[in-house]
């Protein structure tokens, strides 16, 4: 099925438009060829290759819409899918929130997205990556578990008003958790790239191994409020959760942390420390992404928080029309600006604090205050006088990213990183935060 060249994708979507009998039709194609390898206990556990392509068709009659999806592309399947979308649309009640199909748009060129070398990864390359990772752990008498997934995808969108977009993309994501043989210490590392030639699995594995070995003997310190140094993998989920919740409609409707008492939103208000700037930009060379969102809106550069001030909320096309505001595309990436120096520099300039490698199982406790709970994991250390002094037991935290970013102390240079459970494309800097709330100890290693 995959790959789809631009002309093949256009031809397929033109066929769909030709089949349409509704008043309006839009279609999205996503084809993916993906390979992966998992290893654990210093051996390969599972590995596979998958080819798939899905076509999603939305048909409309006035303000009635229906959607159908299929992964077969013969004439009969295409016809059946278009007819099903039309049938659902005819049966659906009117939705006053349906907006007209978008006119043709100009999407930014994203040259860095697709890399041939990533699309050409072989089972042998994956096995060799796993072998090098395992070897790094074995050298320190440790046990490795990890994962490499590479994917090439071909995305296209089309509607009956003539809109068309095509975007091929490759990614390779690698992560490793190394544990000491007795299970007393654990360390993690990961890297997320578009170009597999820039993947440095062996050095990431060595770093994870060093962290595991360094956390063989842990001390328990009391829960409470601490200065923390959050590595990018420790803050990335909380940062994304802050941004996932920036819908204008929810804020206007009074059910968001961005709602103001008495009505209205916090748009234009200072929300967090003035050194915090977060924006989206599909054309970022370090973090390319598809240049349109689910509504077909171009993903141009959009600041969300600028110098601590809420600069934009996310307006869907419908809500933008209601509020007489420009619509904002659903972001495909988030980039948080940083400061100077590296993680090591942050550690060197810290008198007393907790260094957190990674956080885990973060869940919302209160949407009103954006309070989240979660845990530290795979490398938590106490820092004293600018040096890592000793490994400490993991903590549960209860913290709001709003409070966290108000207690900002210092930022280093941003790094591309993937979250533990949020899978967006993100760059965040290592950061030092005052008074981060650790509420209880965890025995987990």
């Amino acid at each position, binding site marked *: 099925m995959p790959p789809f060249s631009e002309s093949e994708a256009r031809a397929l979507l033109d066929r769909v438009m030709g089949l349409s009998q509704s008043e309006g039709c839009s279609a999205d194609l996503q084809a993916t060829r993906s390979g992966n390898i998992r290893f654990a206990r210093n051996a390969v556990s599972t590995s596979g290759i998958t080819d798939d392509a899905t076509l999603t068709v939305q048909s409309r009659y006035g303000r009635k819409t229906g959607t159908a999806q299929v992964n077969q592309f013969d004439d009969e399947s295409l016809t059946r899918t278009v007819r*099903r979308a039309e049938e659902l649309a005819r049966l659906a009640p009117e939705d006053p929130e349906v907006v007209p199909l978008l006119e043709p748009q100009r999407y930014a060129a994203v040259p860095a997205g697709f890399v041939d070398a990533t699309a050409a990864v072989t089972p042998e390359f994956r096995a060799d990556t796993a072998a090098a990772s395992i070897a790094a752990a074995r050298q320190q008498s440790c046990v490795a578990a990890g994962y490499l997934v590479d994917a090439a995808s071909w995305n296209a969108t089309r509607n009956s008003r003539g809109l068309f977009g095509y975007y091929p993309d490759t990614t390779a994501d690698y992560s490793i958790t190394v544990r000491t043989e007795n299970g007393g210490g654990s360390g993690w590392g990961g890297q997320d790239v578009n170009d597999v030639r820039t993947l440095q699995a062996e050095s990431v594995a060595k770093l994870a191994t060093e962290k595991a070995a360094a956390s063989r003997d842990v001390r328990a310190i009391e829960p409470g409020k601490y200065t923390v140094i959050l590595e990018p993998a420790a803050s990335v989920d909380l940062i994304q959760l802050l941004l996932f919740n920036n819908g204008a409609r929810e804020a206007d409707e009074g059910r968001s942390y961005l709602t103001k008492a008495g009505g209205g939103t916090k748009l234009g208000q200072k929300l967090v420390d003035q050194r915090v700037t977060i924006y989206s930009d599909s054309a970022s060379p370090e973090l390319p992404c598809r240049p349109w969102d689910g509504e077909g809106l171009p993903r141009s550069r959009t600041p969300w928080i600028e110098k601590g001030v809420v600069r934009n909320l996310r307006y869907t096309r419908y809500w933008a029309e209601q509020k007489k505001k420009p619509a904002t595309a659903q972001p495909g990436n988030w980039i948080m600006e940083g400061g100077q120096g590296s993680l090591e520099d942050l550690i060197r300039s810290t008198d007393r604090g907790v260094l957190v490698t990674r956080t885990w199982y973060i869940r919302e406790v209160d949407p009103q205050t954006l309070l989240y709970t979660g845990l530290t994991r795979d490398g938590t250390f106490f820092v004293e006088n600018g040096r890592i002094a000793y490994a400490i037991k993991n903590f549960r935290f209860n913290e709001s990213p709003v409070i966290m970013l108000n207690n900002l102390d210092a930022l280093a240079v941003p790094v591309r990183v993937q979250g533990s459970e949020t899978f967006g494309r993100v760059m965040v800097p290592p950061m030092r935060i005052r008074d981060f709330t650790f509420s209880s100890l965890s025995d987990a290693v």
Partner: protein
Amino acid sequence: MTGMAAGALALPPGTRLVPFWNGAITPIPSADKRQLADAALGAARSAGASYADVRIGRYLNQFVTSRETKIQNVTNLESYGVGVRVIADGAWGFAASSEVTPDSVARTARLAVTVAKANAKLQAEPVQLAPQKGYGEVSWRSPIEKNAFDVPLKEKADLLLAAADSGLKSGAKYLQGLLFLVNEQKYFASTDGSYIDQDIHRIWPAFLAVAVDTSSGKFEERFSLSTPTGRGWEYLSGRPDDKMKGPPGTEVTLYGDSYDMIEDAAQAGRTARRKSKAKSVTAGKYDLVLEPSHLWLTIHESVGHPLELDRVLGYEANYAGTSFATLDKWRSKSFKYGADIVTLFADKTQPHSLGAVGYDDEGVATKRWDLVKNGILVNYQAIRDQVHVIGESESQGCCYADSWSSIQFQRMPNVSLAPGAAQLTPAELIGQVDRGVYIVGNGSFSIDQQRYNFQFGGQLFYEIKKGKIVGMLRDVAYQSNTQEFWNSCAGICDQRDYRLGGSFFDGKGQPPQISAVSHGCATARFNGVNVLNTARKI
């Protein structure tokens, strides 16, 4: 591509050279599936596989969503393809494709063998697969009364709109609704000689009601008290016999084998308003009385996950985590997981549960077994390539893949708390509590990667004083340690109160897969649990 004639591949006797199933709405004919399966198995064997299985899957989903009194989305999803798993040179390999013809499935099978051989050089020891007899041609279907996919869209839209209307009239300012239908049509065949055809149905009606106080800028949410279930449209019949009045002082109606979405939306509107005016909890130790609509999730996180053998062995170390329930604790035969009254069992056979199937995704008939017996850890959840580790000769039948394109692996069966032997109602249980909190519905949930430290919220919280519910509370979460928590279990209501809760979205694995799983329990009491106050100011 579909619609093609069988190619040059050597096919078994009886092979026809006519077009194959073309993805129409009718089920795939069994003869087509068998022929495709044999093509894959034969190709895998010829390429050097010592074992192979093939899953031909057709997955149908339907979503209908509403926002207040508007239907916002009606979507039908359909995915069809084949996944082939092999052992070659002692290692696993897998490949999957949405092209389903004899030629392409054979090609996919050969690719799986290539993957296995590339991995074999890293294999410390060959895969050890527990023997499994072939069942020949067998089938299984979810015991549904009315296929929800056959219900007219208008009926579904009307239900969501009526629920929204009911919630909005009762105090909610916003109400978003969902009907989520799942049908897995799965055909499994293996070189062991099984050809298993299964038709699995699930449904989940749900909503979120929100009450807003504009002057203070505050809002309160209340999720539906429904559960996802292995039923058809009959789940939405809201039969009077399936409704239970909550204990005195709660004014809540709870649901069993069927659900009344319109009624629940009305009580959600009322309770969201009430919750916003409730007393903020004073942090401290309380005796908790946990209703099944809440407790299922605590069971899921603190019992279901830590007893997955792949976690215990370290296979999930890089993502979902490992487990505190290590093999030495199990071998001791004396590890006190919970109080004496606590028996927790795994079960893939309970009718209408989300995990119920006839056979798992590696061709093993499903069953029930104990995990914790009278408080002692006695077993794990294991599949064919793991059971030798715990000295068993056959798989426990809990292997699952969420799609034809996903690699099947060990997934949690339904894990449930056995009801108490003595007659005990929730009201009687509350009557025994001096200072406590009664919790209904699941809310926030978080647990560490070895399943020691957890924190849970809920939907509705009621203060218990001297055996009576005296009012609602808010800002409640409880935090505990798994072993400490289950050993604090001081009472479990009887079979009459036993109900299933569950999730469509249990996540595990890399790439992440979801799985639907139920957990049964009756209302239970846990003494002296740490309760936090979660109120903050930003």
